[in-house]
């Protein structure tokens, strides 16, 4: 533990507002542990008044389901959301560090970081994990939120080297991402309202779970619902389990009627 005296010096401005660069913040070593749980699928989409992110609840170790109710979508601060896929231990630790990083900057500087500033910091934290990624401990975040300056919802995806890419419609991450993206391509409507956007995201998660063994779907039997978070001008809100279950029940009922979900016109 640092004494307060070590922490003196370097006032606001310059590099003094970063928490992650403080001495003593543990840098994780690089143990190669193939048995670490992996998080699976995260999806996000923009809608008229903001952006929403949905994450399934499964973590796997190889072909075994390690956890049925893990949470992989988190509020990063009052206006942003971060979701994770890959090695769960490293990823949740990175989220924890990222949350403190954002709040730390805001407290020291008196104003929050810009949206791009936040996305950039996440890049740097991710890049610090690059050696572990090379050793097989790969994890990736997705970052979305309300940008008060641009007055719209925004989304960023990342690659293992810390590269960040702005997404303008929808995004998916993790083992079921390809299937979810396919569904979102047909269902997503950027002008729709929040409820419709979340419905499209849950549909895409259903499709991901349909084809990817590592993704959990809408578990109505036990009431283990995907985590749904939404960011708008009013801030970040997490949907209650009841809200998610109501919508999920309608989606599952729809699938009982029609195998592939909602029908679109071919031409």
């Amino acid at each position, binding site marked *: *533990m*640092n*004494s*307060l*005296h070590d*922490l*003196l*010096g*370097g*006032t*606001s401005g310059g590099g*003094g507002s970063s*928490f992650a660069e*403080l001495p*003593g*913040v*543990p840098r994780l070593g690089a143990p190669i542990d193939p048995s670490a749980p992996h998080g699976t699928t995260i999806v996000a989409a923009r809608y008229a008044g903001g952006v929403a992110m949905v994450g399934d609840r499964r973590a796997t170790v190889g072909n075994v389901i390690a956890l049925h109710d893990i949470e992989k979508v988190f509020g990063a601060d009052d206006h942003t959301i971060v979701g994770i896929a890959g090695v769960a231990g490293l990823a949740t630790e990175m989220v*924890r*560090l990222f949350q*403190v990083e954002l*709040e*730390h900057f805001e*407290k*020291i500087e*008196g104003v929050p970081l810009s949206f791009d500033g936040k996305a950039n910091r996440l890049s740097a934290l991710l890049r610090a994990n690059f050696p572990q990624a090379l050793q097989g401990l790969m994890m990736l975040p997705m970052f979305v939120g309300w940008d008060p300056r641009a007055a719209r919802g925004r989304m960023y995806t990342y690659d293992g080297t810390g590269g960040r890419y702005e997404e303008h419609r929808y995004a998916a991450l993790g083992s079921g991402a390809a299937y979810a993206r396919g569904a979102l391509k047909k269902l997503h409507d950027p002008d729709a309202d929040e409820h419709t956007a979340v419905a499209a995201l849950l549909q895409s998660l259903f499709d991901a779970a349909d084809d990817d063994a590592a993704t959990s779907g809408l578990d109505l039997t036990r009431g283990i619902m995907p985590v749904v978070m939404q960011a708008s001008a009013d801030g970040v809100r997490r949907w209650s389990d009841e809200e998610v279950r109501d919508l999920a029940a309608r989606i599952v009922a729809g699938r009982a009627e029609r195998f592939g979900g909602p029908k679109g016109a071919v031409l």
Partner: protein
Amino acid sequence: MYVPPEQLMLDRAEFARKGIARGRSVAVCKLDAGVLFVAENHSTTLHKVSEIHDRIGFAAVGRYHEFEMLRVAGIRHADLRGYSYDRTDVTARSLAGAYSQILGTTFASSVEKPYEVELIVAELGQQPSDDVLYRISYDGVITDERTFTVIGGEPERIVEAVGEGLSGDVGVGEALRTLARGLRPGTGLGAAQVEVGFLDRRAGRRRTFRRIEGDELEGLLRG
């Protein structure tokens, strides 16, 4: 030339006290609704009152660059503790102790100039009876305050002026008006001359500190 140690300490205390007395004062009080910080401050960007952690607030008077450095160190201390252990393990007591060590050591050092600052560290408890209010003076002395405290120039006069006007069950608006009158006798302080922070017991979120400003502040000052 020989200077007796008693004289040396008196001189250093005199030096620090003079620096502090030049600045405008800050008053902090415990209420049922939370902990209220009221500072006379004509700047809207150079703060005297600030958030340290989820339930901990900070107020300071004296030299700006000195207390700003201490404020930043305090935030680092709190965030490191919260990250290393758990957010609930960050306490005002540990922070006040760390501040006291720095101020006390520097005050007694023969090579450094004493800090010309006074600090308040307050923590919001789960119940009003658990609230904590520490005053830390330039020489590192910590005082555990019961209901309210003042730092800066003429604290005794302000304490006297506020007098019995404050008790726990007073509302935020009334407490604010009482303190604003106490800080500037006669006219009282207007919204442009006052900086107000509040650790809100009913915040309903992890971070309880917020600034009371703009229309809300004007409304509360008007009563």
